[in-house]
């Protein structure tokens, strides 16, 4: 009986921690507000990595493969069309679209751990470059509600 009680107690604690942590986050699916501060991490990319070229720039399948990867790993937080959600910002915002491929690759690799963007170096390098190709191919005009109109 002691073991049962202890097991149930630990499970309850586990659930409680989950609830508390989850309640700190707003619900998904609500329209995100544009906040340029969330893109500040992009500015932290070292100069050297900003200049990196995408080795799959001329790969005709890279965007399609990137779209599959995006659906599998990123859409959950960034939205199915990368329009953003309350969990993560829009990837159609000008800050992202104007960033160099090297910067986006760097951000994917390192994540923004303190702000709950996981490290994605678990995806092999070519897959991260495929994702970058897909993200750069997105149409800025379909940006999230509240974000500024793209520059002409």
């Amino acid at each position, binding site marked *: 009986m002691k073991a049962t009680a202890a097991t149930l107690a630990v499970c309850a604690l586990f659930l409680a921690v989950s609830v508390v942590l989850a309640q700190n986050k707003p619900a998904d699916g609500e329209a995100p507000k544009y906040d340029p501060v969330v893109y500040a991490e992009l500015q932290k990319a070292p100069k050297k990595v900003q200049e990196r070229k995408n080795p799959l720039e001329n790969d005709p*399948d890279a965007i*399609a493969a990137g779209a*599959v990867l995006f659906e*599998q790993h990123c859409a*959950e937080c960034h939205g199915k069309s990368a329009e953003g959600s309350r*969990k993560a910002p829009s990837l159609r915002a000008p800050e992202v679209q104007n960033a160099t491929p090297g910067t986006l690759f760097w951000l994917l690799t390192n994540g923004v751990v303190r702000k709950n963007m996981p490290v994605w170096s678990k*995806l092999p390098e070519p897959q991260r470059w495929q994702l970058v190709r897909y993200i750069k191919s997105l149409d800025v005009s379909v940006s999230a509600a509240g974000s500024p109109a793209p520059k002409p």
Partner: protein
Amino acid sequence: MVSTYRLALAGSFCLFLLSFCSAPYAIAQESPYFVAYDHYLEEPGNLEIEYFSTFGTQRGGNDFHGSWVEFEYGASAWWTTEIYLDGQTTFSDSTVFTGFRWENRFRPLKREHFINPIFYVEYENKNGADKILKEGEGHDVESDFLVSNAEARKEHIHEIELKLILSSTFKGWNFTQNTLAAKNLTNSPWEFGYALGASRPLALKASAKRCTFCPQNFVAGAEMYGGLGDRHSFGLHDTAHYLAPVLGWNLPSGWGLRISPGFGLNDNSHQFLMRWGVSREISGFGSMVSRLFAGRK
């Protein structure tokens, strides 16, 4: 105790069904290891439910089948917490629930480095009949498993286990090294162990189509693990060591499968271990729980 184990299994099975029927899934990019850990944590807010199984041969006694259910939750991008429920069946003996574990992994560094450390802290509340062989530690050897379940269950173990995980990913390969220190909170010395792992996806580029059998969905490698004695007699003597090829298959449906035949490397080790596991990741579990209790706005 048998009924407790059955209750735990039944509960886990219900959660599996629930996740299968209703919960949104996430594609897990799981490492194929069973014992070694790499530096990748669970995605924040996701819950992964896993079932693992270990069949082991036993010289001079009955073969056994250890199993555990694992609930792994991404509390944040730098903290993953897990609950394990363990049990085992010793053939021609009995089936017993052997205890639970609460594991936490912390990522101390903000960015990715060539070598990435992870701190691992685990509390184990189990009995002496535990046979899941989730780690190699101290002087744990094959002959320890000869004791009958009825006798072994009388020993209660409250243990703290600490690990330093050093992991690196280079050109698609993951290399990881885990150093373990465990202390039974009663009156036992610190025990030590290690685990090493190397793995790589079968393809580095993703396919342009969603597919089940694409090579990038498979991760293959090997792991090696064993004990390193204790504070009074550190070293390799009277310790067990294993080498195990590993294969993981991450299905686009959200399910993950792992399999690993393991081979004992010395006379103190079980000659053969066969492990397999199945997992499913539920995306946005934290938000779902939050909505359940907070209501919709």
